[in-house]
């Protein structure tokens, strides 16, 4: 394999592995705020017990997120040096802002969240929990801004050897080293055409990851009749966020797709397997892209795609026939990942509705009732669904961006480090593979141990830090 393929595999692998963890901390962080907030409001020790248990889970997940996240910051430089020089003016500032505004906030207050129960009072602890959750959300803001600018560059122009050049310029290899994007307008970069839609969609998808982790563990306890009070209450918190998140992900997903149609027509054509530019463009709920015969197999809903992206069936949607073959992304992968994400998105809405209905009918009081038990059995593995959807969504976004690394300006193949050889990347890729395999096994092992151990027994004197008891009884 050549250095480009290996570098792409390595980046995809390291970023995909990392991305198991941040959505969990974003979603779980929000749930911790809800749980501890409920405790602040009601002083019911049950909520405090929940906050403590889920904080421990949070700590484990956060640790893995930190350990795997630092890799990515280095990897732009190690494997994509030409890209780094090309976009440093813009991408680098977003990363630096992420460090200053998000990571410091998260890690500073995380210390209080995890280790401060006995050191600070309940108000300051709750404040720390809120700041950790906020920091997790901020980190999404800056990295999504940076990535969205790659998808839909704005607020900047191209310079070769210090002279401005129009977009669409095809680089001579000799020019690459002194070409770069230069910022014109910071807010233009931040609010580039796709950043806000994609930010919203990514955040609610992250909420789903956290929500279904809680739903899944709670359902497991209920099926086993363990920690029933704790599990029922956790399940309800998880379901609230799951309901809100799954419906919002439908809305934000729709906005994102409409944005892709407007800004990245070749990506939309690949996502939907649309070969001909046409009004009344059809939508395939599922299918198979048959590139040899330039068609997409599977059922099609007439005009649905035109309607969805513009609100009008008469809207003409660009098909692959209007995109030069060398500017098309890999079609099958983009199509299938996109459809996988959509299918999972709808099943999560279904699960959330079902769970909410059971809750509304008071069915969680008896986990053994057949309807409830069936829901719980499905809820246990449901933790995997948002994870799969998150990965599939990002694979759609990033594979669909090909062949560009910066849309319309720089190709992925042009962004590599000139001096790094294939055998070096192979060595590091093997290293990452082995280390991450070990980490993942250990993570699952420890997560399972924590779940099996369960929350501490609910005795107020034991569950509350000594310095909080007087205040909570007062």
């Amino acid at each position, binding site marked *: 394999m050549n250095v480009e393929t290996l570098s792409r595999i390595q980046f995809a692998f390291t970023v995909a592995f990392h991305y198991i963890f941040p959505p969990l901390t974003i979603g779980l962080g929000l749930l911790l705020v809800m749980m501890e907030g409920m405790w602040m409001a009601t002083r019911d020790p049950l909520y405090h017990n929940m906050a403590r248990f889920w904080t421990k889970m949070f700590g*484990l997940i956060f*640790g*893995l997120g930190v*350990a795997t*996240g*630092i890799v990515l*910051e*280095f990897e*732009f*430089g*190690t*494997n994509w*040096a030409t890209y*780094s*020089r*090309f*976009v*440093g*003016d*813009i991408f*680098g*500032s977003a*990363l*630096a*802002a*992420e*460090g*200053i*505004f998000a*990571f*410091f*906030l998260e*890690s*500073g*207050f*995380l*210390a*209080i969240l*995890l*280790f*401060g129960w006995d*050191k*600070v009072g309940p108000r300051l602890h709750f404040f720390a929990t809120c700041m950790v959750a906020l920091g997790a959300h901020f980190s999404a803001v800056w990295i999504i801004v940076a990535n969205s600018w790659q998808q839909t560059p704005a607020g900047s122009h191209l310079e070769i050897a210090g002279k401005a050049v129009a977009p669409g310029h095809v680089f001579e290899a000799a020019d690459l*080293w*002194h070409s770069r994007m*230069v*910022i*014109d307008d*910071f807010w233009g970069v931040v609010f580039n055409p796709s950043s806000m839609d994609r930010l919203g969609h990514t955040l609610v998808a992250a909420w789903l990851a956290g929500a279904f982790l809680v739903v899944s563990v709670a359902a497991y306890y209920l099926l086993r009749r363990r920690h029933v009070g704790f599990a029922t209450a956790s399940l309800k918190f998880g379901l609230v966020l799951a309901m809100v998140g799954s419906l919002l992900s439908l809305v934000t997903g729709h906005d994102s797709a409409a944005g892709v149609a407007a800004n990245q027509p070749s990506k939309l054509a690949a996502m939907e397997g649309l070969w001909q530019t046409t009004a009344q463009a059809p939508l395939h709920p599922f299918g198979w892209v048959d590139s040899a015969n330039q068609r997409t197999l599977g059922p099609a809903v007439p005009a649905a795609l035109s309607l969805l992206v513009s609100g009008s069936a008469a809207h003409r949607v660009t098909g692959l026939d209007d995109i030069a073959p060398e500017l098309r992304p890999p079609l099958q992968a983009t199509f299938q990942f996109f459809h996988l994400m959509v299918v999972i998105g709808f099943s999560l809405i279904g699960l959330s509705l079902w769970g909410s209905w059971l809750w509304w009918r008071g069915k969680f009081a008896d986990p053994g009732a057949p309807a409830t038990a069936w829901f719980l059995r499905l809820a246990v593995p449901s933790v995997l669904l948002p994870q799969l959807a998150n990965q599939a969504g990002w694979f759609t976004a990033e594979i669909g961006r090909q062949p560009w690394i910066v849309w319309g300006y720089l190709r992925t193949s042009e962004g590599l*480090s*000139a*001096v*790094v050889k294939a055998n070096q990347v192979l*060595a*590091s890729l093997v*290293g990452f593979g082995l*280390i991450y395999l070990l*980490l993942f096994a250990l993570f699952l092992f*420890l997560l399972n*141990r924590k779940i099996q151990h369960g929350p501490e027994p609910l005795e107020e004197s034991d569950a509350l830090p000594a310095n909080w008891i007087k205040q909570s009884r007062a």
Partner: protein
Amino acid sequence: MDYNLLWFVVVGVLFSGYAVLDGFDLGVGTLILGIQDDTERRLFYNAIGPVWDGNEVWLVTGGGALFAAFPAVYGTVFSGFYLAFILLLFALIFRAVAIEFRSKEPWAWWRRWWDRGFFAGSTSAAMLIGVAMGNIVWGVPLDAKGEFAGTFLGLLHPYALLMGVTTVALFMMHGSIYLHLKTEGTLQARVRSWINPLIITFIICYSLTTLATLLYVPRMTLVLREQPALFAVVVLLVLAIANLPREIHRGRDWAAFLSSCVAMLLLMALFGLGMFPNMVYALPEPAHSLTIYNASSSVTTLKIMTLIAAIGVPIVLTYTVTVYYIFHGKVKLGKDSY
């Protein structure tokens, strides 16, 4: 002062912050195998427990600032030192998860292996950081486009290795002084017995490095010859290190730790003064060097970043100090501890 100079200083401050803060927890990692008792080892872990990942954020932010302000340096150094940085990443991953996982299970074999991982990760991270700095001081083979023109093995020359060893010694000394601040009783007495030998080891390593620098990399000292007033930095550095045994002897642990921090900041200041205005000094043709002017982002970006830093840094410092204050005092094991 122009924006390029300002950002040279800011990037320097961020990496100095990293050296001072993560320096002591990397040092604790190297020292972990110096004690055997499990409770005492847990006290070491928990001495850095609440702060180590915040400390690492200085590296992440320093890297981000380098990427943003001097993308050509970021690209050239990170791709040029490819295998070295990949090894550094592996080391940092290992020590992070070692801290996180180690005390989650009671088994002796489990803890023993994670302790070894913590030691190996921390020590090799310090070593690799030192080797990278040694190469930056020594000069790096660059072609006319500013691309790295050397090899991985070429980075492991004696001067760089000496700098690596010196960094390990520095972090061990700094770590032991931090541990002295955080421990009590017999464990503290044990730590105290390490401090003087570690100071002496560092002084030996640093003297050798300085001698080698004077002999083989005299350009690093040009600035001191041209601006004799800057020799004050050297004087202060020597005083700060000489002050360490004195403060420990007097039982002023905080003053000793601050003195150690100041010494590290002065070391970084000397490094920055010696390099200026180069960020990567090119061999064999110095004209190819990456400087704070030819390797920087546009002035617009530097201005925007200045605004971001002006807003962000005071906030960061406020809660960093707050967190350190909340967790000040001797480390105790509780049910939330590692």
